């Protein structure tokens, strides 16, 4: 929600919370998952690719920024960037919807390009929604300034 006074204390709390949650999701879980897989199947190629951590760092920076600047215009491009980065990540992780594996003389190829479009649809919408949402709130606040603020509610 835009146009509301958010205290610095709340901003810092939100940013720290975003940092912790994203660090667990993008760094801690992939690291321990990779260690677990390497321990269980030593000869296997099942390792966590480096790009997961690289994307993770970008996600953490943007999420922390968006949490810190919440309610301000500067948060809008960060929210959209997170959404677009999610699209790129999903596309990259699924090799554009074509996954293949070869084992014991059998080649398996799974193709799900259309399904991938469906999967990235919410993220694309989130990227569009952030600036639209900001514009709607800004317009509502401008109208409010010209007509006067709403009556305060007594708790």
């Amino acid at each position, binding site marked *: 929600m835009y146009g509301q006074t958010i205290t610095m204390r709340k901003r810092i709390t939100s940013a720290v919370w975003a940092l912790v949650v994203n660090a667990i999701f993008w760094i801690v879980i992939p690291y321990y998952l990779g260690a677990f897989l390497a321990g269980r199947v030593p000869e296997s190629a099942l390792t966590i690719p480096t790009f997961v951590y690289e994307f993770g760092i970008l996600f953490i920076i943007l999420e922390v920024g968006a949490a810190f600047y919440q309610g301000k215009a500067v948060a809008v491009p960060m929210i959209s960037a997170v959404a677009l980065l999610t699209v790129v990540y999903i596309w990259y992780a699924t090799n554009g919807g074509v996954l293949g594996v070869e084992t014991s003389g059998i080649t398996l*190829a799974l193709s799900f390009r259309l399904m991938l479009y469906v999967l990235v*649809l*919410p993220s694309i919408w989130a990227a569009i*929604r952030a600036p639209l*949402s900001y514009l*709607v709130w800004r317009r509502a606040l401008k109208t409010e300034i010209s007509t006067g603020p*709403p009556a305060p509610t007594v708790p």
Partner: protein
Amino acid sequence: MQVKRKTPRGIWALRGVTVAIAVIVLLAIGTVVYSAYEDYTAVKAELAGGNQQAIGAAVLRGSTETVSINITVPNNGLYPLNVTLSCDYPTTNVVCQRTSVDVSPGGQGVLRFRMTVLDLTEFEGSDNQVINGTVAISMMPFVGLTVGTDFGGFVKPGGS
């Protein structure tokens, strides 16, 4: 005391679109997973319970062996199913027919695949008895699975 602002109508519209997209995505994923499971279970049951002689029969005439594969493909899912069998690199000694069957939801189709080894003696005597074949299963329009495997195992010395 805090000023409580009324959520603008435009925000409700944006939320509505978000909910609609979420429902579409969940429905798409749910129906694809459900269909894949149902189709897999049905085809597995068909292959396990079917007459193996009818599924894969090899007829030897002289030195020419014809392998016939007849598979009933049921579609218990929600999306049309297409199954295609083909040989990737037919040799001069092996002739394959590319066969395809489209099965609409709730129906079943029969896939008839013929593979002819013109000279079985030459095939058995050769070092490379691999016939590269492809089984393509497509749950239209969302998912397609292609399995590349050796069809040489269908060739039975002396027929069956």
